[in-house]
């Protein structure tokens, strides 16, 4: 299936929303790949971090279906090393926000086992599941 690219996608509302919420100029990214090269959780991702940004740049909305945006641990390694100072963690947050606004619910919080909840430091629960509410 061909991905259609036009003014509606590259300069449309989806891209503008991402830029507004993240405060980032998506086109500053030249896709060097350094973020992907240093991402610690990459083995658990379905789409590379740099590819997430690429899809966002082109206004391709099925980026919202990627697991990557929920698995990002916000370790901030990517933004610390980015040559163009593109804040990818903020872009991930913007994508999560838009996804939730559209009703995408990635995790059933209630399904987390009780023993795990009892064992974890509460900052893990607040931090981890904070992502799943706006």
């Amino acid at each position, binding site marked *: 299936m061909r991905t259609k690219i036009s003014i509606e996608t590259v300069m449309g509302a989806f891209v503008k929303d991402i830029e507004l919420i993240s405060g980032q100029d998506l086109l500053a990214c*030249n*896709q*060097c*790949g*350094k*973020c*992907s*090269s*240093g*991402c610690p959780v*990459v083995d658990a991702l379905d*789409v*590379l971090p*740099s*590819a997430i940004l690429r899809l966002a740049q082109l206004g391709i909305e099925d980026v919202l279906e990627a697991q990557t945006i929920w698995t990002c641990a916000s370790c901030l*390694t990517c933004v610390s*090393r*980015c*040559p*163009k*100072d593109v804040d990818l963690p903020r872009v991930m947050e913007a994508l999560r926000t838009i996804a939730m606004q559209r009703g995408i619910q990635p995790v059933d919080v209630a399904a987390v086992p009780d023993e795990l909840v009892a064992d974890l430091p509460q900052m893990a629960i607040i931090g981890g599941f904070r992502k799943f509410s706006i």
Partner: protein
Amino acid sequence: MINRALVIGAGIAGIQAALDIANSGHEVVLVERQPSIGGHMAQLSETFPTLDCSQCIMTPRTVEVGHHDNIKLYTYSEVEEITGGQGDFKVKIRRKASYVNWDLCTGCGVCQEKCPWKAPAEFDRGVGIRKAIYTLSPQAVPNKPVVNPEVCVRLKSMAEGGKLKCGACLKFCPINAIDFEQQETFVEEHVGAVVVATGYDLFPQMRLPEYGGGKIPDVIDALAFERLLAASGPTGGKVKRPSDGKEPKEIVFVQCSGSRDPEHGVPYCSKICCMYTAKQAILYRHRVHDGQPYVFYIDIRAGGKGYEEFINRAQEDEGVVYLRGKVSKIYRDGDKVMVWGSDTLSGRKVEIAADLVILSLAALPAEGTSEVQRSLGLDADKNGFYISADGELDPVSAGVPGVFIAGAGLGPKDIPETVAQASGAAAKVLTLFRQVG
């Protein structure tokens, strides 16, 4: 109008400009801060895209400079001050103390043989050794050594005021040319025009802590690798890695180390690295038949004549594996060097356990460039390079009357472009001499 020219810097740009002016009958004062001429080109093994031996194509020119009736060569010297203007510049030149009487020295090399004190050779970028008394290379022009006060035990004992130590070179020199009392001297020259050809230096590894910060012995820069490849280099052209001298079987080239990085390095592209990396990968394959080179890149810049074909040769004929993704981290794990990069084209984060890593460090304006800019009243761009009078139509004029620029001091560039600019600057000088004189 004094029909003499000053050329600052004797790399290939300075050498070419000096020869062009000198061969047209005008005198040239050529000043070089290193003990001998040739600049970075003298460090190279072969040049791209022809794979000509660098020494072989350069030596005829360096020898011509050394013997030329119209070239007054001051090496191990720096321009201290310039006053005056076009037609009559007064140039004060500081001749550093070499502690060797070059009028007597025949270049026999016994002093270097007998000197017991060693240090990493700057010419070899840390992969080779030199002595406290040294020449840069066996083909140095002029072939006269200098003594380094930081390594020379005799000079250090003189500075401490205690008992005098060593003095081996003094003892063994057959012509009594060693002079530990030598002082630096100043000379004054008058010229009508100046060509600035001060060149480039490399970004310090220390500024790339995620790549090891210069502390990992088997992470070297491309000029160092060039010295390992060079037949006249410290390993006789055998590729041996610094930590244990073993032949590396898997080597990784990391492009854009410091370049194209407004946040942590320099914002510009250093232009020559894509090409020299392909060259080094090809040369490595020729030396180590069972070795595998990998190149991590962001883009491949190969716009010159024959350049794209050269890259194809590396990829198709020589089996160099190109991975598109900037390296994020380099660290040591046992006797391997781990490289974390990615291949955005296939969508993978990639890890390579390398034996040797070569960084394409960004090209910066050479050390001393800002002093030259100050003494001539030249502006620098925001990266410290010289600015042309007109970036499109007059690249080799400095915008200050009588001053011209050529080579990497204006921005990183390859040898063909450098030589072309040098001849261009020389032509401008000669036009000036004709017009007024």
